[in-house]
C-alpha cells in the first residue's frame, strides 16, 4: 500500500509539473465562463419577453451546455497522463522506476478518477452557483431549481460524469499511446457523438443517446430528460465505460513492448 501511495504521489507530481495540465484546466474554465455568458443572454431575453413567451422557455440548467466540455478537458488530462509519457519517451524512466505495470496504471487510474471527480465537482458547483446568481428568483421553466437543495443531484451526477470521462480518457491513452488519437477519440465520444445522434430516427436517437457519456448524468440523477435509462441503469452503463476503458488500457499497457 505504501508503494502504491508513493507511485500515486509521483503521478500527482508529474501532473502538477507540466503546463498541459493547466492549459486543459484553462479550457474547462473558459467553457464554464462561456456557459455563464450564454445563460446571461438567455436571462436577458427571458426578461424582455411577454409572460406567454416565457412559458415556452427551456430549463436553463447550465450543466447541459458546460459539463460535456468540462468532461472533455478534464478527460484530456486523464489521457495525457499516459500519452505524454509515450510521446516524450519518459515512459522509459517511468517503467524503470515502477516496472510493475498494473501498479503504475492503477496509480494513474486512481489519480485520473480523483482529478475527474474533484474537477467535475468544482466546475459543476461553479456552473450551478453562477446560474443561481444569474437566475435569481425567476420562475420555472427557466429556473430549474426551487431551492438550492434541488441542484445537489445535478452537481453530484455531473461530477460523476466527469470522473467516468477522465477514466475513459486514461484508458484510451493507454490503448492508443498517441495524444492526437486519444483526444480525437475522446472528443468524438463526448462532443461529436451526441450531435450525430440527433440525425438518427427518434427511436434510435433515444436508444443511442441514452448510452452516450454526456447524457448519463441526467439519467443517473433521475432528472427530467427524454432518455430511456433508470438511475440504476445509468450507473451500470457508467461502470461499464470505466471497466471497458481501464480493462482495455491495462491489457495494452501490460502486454505491449513499452518503447
Amino acid at each position: 500500500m505504501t508503494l502504491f501511495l508513493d507511485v500515486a504521489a509521483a503521478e500527482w507530481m508529474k501532473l502538477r509539473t507540466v503546463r498541459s495540465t493547466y492549459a486543459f484546466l484553462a479550457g474547462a474554465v473558459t467553457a464554464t465562463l462561456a456557459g455563464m455568458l450564454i445563460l446571461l443572454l438567455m436571462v436577458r431575453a427571458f426578461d424582455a419577453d411577454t409572460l406567454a413567451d416565457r412559458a415556452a422557455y427551456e430549463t436553463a440548467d447550465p450543466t447541459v451546455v458546460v459539463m460535456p466540455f468540462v468532461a472533455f478537458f478534464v478527460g484530456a488530462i486523464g489521457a495525457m497522463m499516459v500519452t505524454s509519457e509515450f510521446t516524450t519517451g519518459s515512459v522509459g524512466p517511468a517503467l524503470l522506476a515502477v516496472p510493475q505495470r498494473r501498479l503504475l496504471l492503477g496509480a494513474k487510474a486512481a489519480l485520473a478518477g480523483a482529478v475527474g471527480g474533484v474537477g467535475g465537482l468544482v466546475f459543476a458547483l461553479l456552473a450551478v452557483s453562477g446560474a443561481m446568481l444569474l437566475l435569481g428568483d425567476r420562475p420555472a421553466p427557466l429556473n430549474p431549481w426551487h431551492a438550492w437543495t434541488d441542484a445537489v443531484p445535478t452537481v453530484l451526477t455531473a461530477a460523476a460524469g466527469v470522473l467516468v470521462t477522465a477514466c475513459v480518457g486514461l484508458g484510451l491513452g493507454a490503448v492508443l499511446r498517441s495524444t492526437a488519437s486519444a483526444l480525437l477519440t475522446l472528443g468524438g465520444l463526448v462532443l461529436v457523438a451526441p450531435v450525430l445522434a440527433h440525425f438518427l430516427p427518434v427511436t434510435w436517437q433515444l436508444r443511442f443517446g441514452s448510452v452516450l457519456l454526456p447524457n448519463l448524468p441526467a439519467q443517473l440523477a433521475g432528472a427530467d430528460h427524454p432518455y430511456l435509462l433508470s438511475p440504476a441503469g445509468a450507473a451500470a452503463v457508467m461502470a461499464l465505460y470505466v471497466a471497458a476503458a481501464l480493462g482495455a488500457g491495462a491489457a495494452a499497457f501490460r502486454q505491449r513492448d513499452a518503447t
Partner: protein
Amino acid sequence: MIAVRELTKLYGHTPALDRLSFEVRPGVVTGFLGPNGAGKSTTLRILLGLHRPTSGEALIGGRPYRRIRRPLHEVGAVLDADAAHPGRTARHHLDCLARTNGIGRARVAAVLAEVGLAAVADKRVGGFSLGMRQRLGIAGALLGDPGVIVLDEPVNGLDAAGIRWIRSTLRSLAAQGRTVLLSSHLMSEVALTADRVLILGRGRLLDEISVADLPVRGATLEDVYLRLTGEAAEFRAVPR
C-alpha cells in the same frame, strides 16, 4: 550480477535475438559491442522489463526486473537521452522518479550536483543540449545508489570533458564492486572504458574478450570486432 539465458526475441517473423546467453559480473566494466541491428538495445530493453522476450530469460540478481520492488535502489539505467518530459524541470523529473522509490529530495540535489546540472536544475529539460540530457539520464540512474548500472550509448552527444567524466565515473563505480554494463558502437570508447567486451552480431554472442588480453593476441579491439562482425553485420558497405 546479470544473467541472460537462451534469450530469443522475434518481431513478427524477424529474429532480433537468437538464443543469446551471457553473464555480467560485478567489479568490472563490461562493454556490449555490436553493429547496428545486432540486438544490443533489444537485449537491454528485455533485461530492464520494457520488452517481453519470445523465450528465455534475463535476470538481475537472480530475478526478472519486473519483480524487483523499488528497483532504483538495485539497478540504474539510461537507455535514451530523450527520456524526460521537455516541459518539466530537471529537478522535477528526478523528484518524480525518486518519489516512486522512496528516495528523498536531498539525494536528488546530490545527484544533480554530481552530474554537473545543479545550476540548471530548475530549467525545463526542453532547453537542454543533448549532452545535458545525457547527464540528466545518468543522474536518474545514480538516484538509488544502485549496485547494477546499465547504460546504452551514454557518450552520445557528450563533449570531451563529458566523455572523460563518464569513463572515470563508470570505472570508479566498477571499482566499488558494482556491476556495470555499457552498450556502445564506439570501439575506441569501449576499449578505453571496459575490462571485458561482449561482441554481438545478428542477435548472437560472437565472442567474449578481455581487453587486457588483446595485446597478447597481437590485435586491437577493432581488428577482433571487424573480423567477428564482418559476416554477421546486417548492413554492410560494398567495397569499390
